[in-house]
């Protein structure tokens, strides 16, 4: 089991953000976490990543209590791919990717030739070896996201956590990044993403976890979660879920449109 979260609760001061969250993620699984803004998706992410530690309950990563990890050890298990990264200085793509090796270096070390080769491998893997010498600032949002994925890969951590990876991307880049993430699960990586796109998470995930007001509303196979009832509960949106291509794809159509169409 890659991650086992049991009875996790978290409060910011008096305000409880997460209530008794339990879920498990198997190795090689693609898990999407769905939920409206402000339900605690980011807080849950931060707890699992070890950026927040004042929670009750337990987070086990590869069987070990996440709180017992040092910063360096945690980075060997989980890599984090932020929604976007805006470095204040003008780094090259290869510099950014090379930073992913830092957890394997001692404080006084600089990356070696082997580290550089690992970066070249990662850029190749996500399909952007030609961008190595470019300025990170000058890349498109999708390319930047791929660079951050490459940076996570050189960390040699088997779990990748993507925070709304498609939030700032155009449609083509959204598919590009998600396909990349999906293909990594075939290599044995465990991928967890937060997202605002139920249809995309249906298409790409193995399992979906729906969060509502800091509690788990429902979790399970995409076909169990992407239903009219759950979408109504989760987003307060009246939609008709339309199944296409032998249920390989599900589309959420606003109810007033389907009602009009049926009336004809």
């Amino acid at each position, binding site marked *: 089991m890659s991650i086992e979260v049991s009875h996790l609760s978290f409060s910011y001061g008096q305000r409880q953000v997460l209530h008794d969250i339990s879920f498990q993620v198997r190795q090689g699984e693609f898990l999407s976490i769905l939920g409206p803004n402000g339900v605690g998706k980011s807080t849950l992410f*931060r707890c699992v*990543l*070890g*950026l927040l530690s004042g929670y009750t309950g337990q987070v086990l990563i590869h069987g070990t209590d996440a709180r017992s990890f040092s*910063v*360096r050890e*945690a*980075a*060997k298990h*989980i*890599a*984090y791919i*932020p929604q976007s*990264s805006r*470095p*204040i*200085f*003008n*780094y*090259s*793509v*290869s*510099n950014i990717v090379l*930073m*992913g090796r*830092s*957890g*394997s*270096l001692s*404080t*006084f*070390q*600089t*990356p070696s030739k082997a580290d550089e080769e690992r970066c070249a491998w990662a850029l190749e893997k996500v399909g952007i070896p030609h961008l190595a*010498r*470019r*300025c990170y600032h000058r890349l498109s949002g999708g390319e930047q996201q791929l660079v951050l994925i490459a*940076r996570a890969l050189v*960390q040699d951590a088997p779990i990748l956590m993507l925070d709304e990876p498609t939030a700032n991307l155009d449609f083509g880049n959204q598919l590009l990044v998600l396909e990349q993430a999906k293909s990594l699960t075939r290599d044995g990586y465990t991928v967890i993403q937060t997202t605002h796109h139920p249809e995309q998470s249906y298409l790409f995930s193995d399992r979906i976890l729906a969060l509502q007001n800091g509690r788990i509303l429902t979790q399970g196979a995409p076909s169990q979660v992407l239903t009219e009832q759950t979408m109504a509960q989760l987003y307060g949106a009246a939609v008709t879920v339309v199944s296409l291509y032998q249920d390989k794809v599900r589309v959420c159509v606003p109810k007033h449109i389907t009602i009009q169409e049926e009336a004809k």
Partner: protein
Amino acid sequence: MKQRLVSPVRMVWLLGALLIVCILASFTLGHYPVPLGQLLGILGSRLGLPIEVSWTPQMETAVWNIRLPRVLMSVLVGACLAGAGASYQGIFQNPMASPDILGASAGAGFGAALSILIGLSSVGIMVAAFAASLATVALVFTVSRHAKGDRVLGLVLSGIMVSSLFQSATSFIKLVADPNNKLPQITYWLMGSLSGAKWSEIGFILPPMLAGLIPLLLMRWQLNVVTMGDDEARAMGVNAPRIRLWTVLCSTLVTAAAVSVSGMIGWVGLVIPHMTRRLLGADYRCLMPGSMLGGGIFLLVVDNVSRNATTAGIPIGILTAFIGAPFFLWLITGKGDHYEH
């Protein structure tokens, strides 16, 4: 989009070579120029090489006791200020950070002004400035621990506030100081100057400078990661707050050592890291040594101008501002860093 003509690593070596050329050239300039051959002879014989004496004793005194300490002092102070500036810009994720952001200069100025007021010797002034500088940054650090919210912002804001407090205290000392002898001395100290550098001063500042510069050079890769923010750094396995603490310690040590002998020399710590970043990129692996070398070169050249351009010798702190401010304006009105890597 331009490609760099020279790789960053090679550029660092070029800067090193340029520094050596500037050091040698510094001896051949001035009221008492020493030809290169004799200069090398004097330096060699001092280092114990058997060289036939082809120079006068006065020449040797000028080179060894007057010119060389001043040259070394310029290079060391420049390297420390630029190195500390580059570090602070990284750990505070703030391109406008300079070595005095945590009050090191304001504290040193206060310490120096106070010790001039009570009539300490020049060694006493230096030691007081150094101690006051360290104490001020320690105070800033302690205050910021109690600041609510963002740690880094709290630290920077505390630095600004405590600095202005100490600047006011220095102004008060100037107000009560004897306008015939003490006030000019305080004013001159605050303007910054490298004239009258002595071996004894170098002996005093060299240990803290090396104790700060060497770890800064060794930690330089980690600084790259810290510029990405604490959360990202942590997820990559780097404990950013710890790196920041060590960097603040080292940078404070070198800044305090520098200002205790040179007085307030502004702009070097802000401008040189930017210039170096422009020259060889943002990667601290090259930026850190490059900034240190660049700072050394810059201050040495400016000091030569200050020494030779006018008989009175304009205080170097004024000259760095005259050169630094317009340069910085030119830098920010340009279109930033166009270079691909």
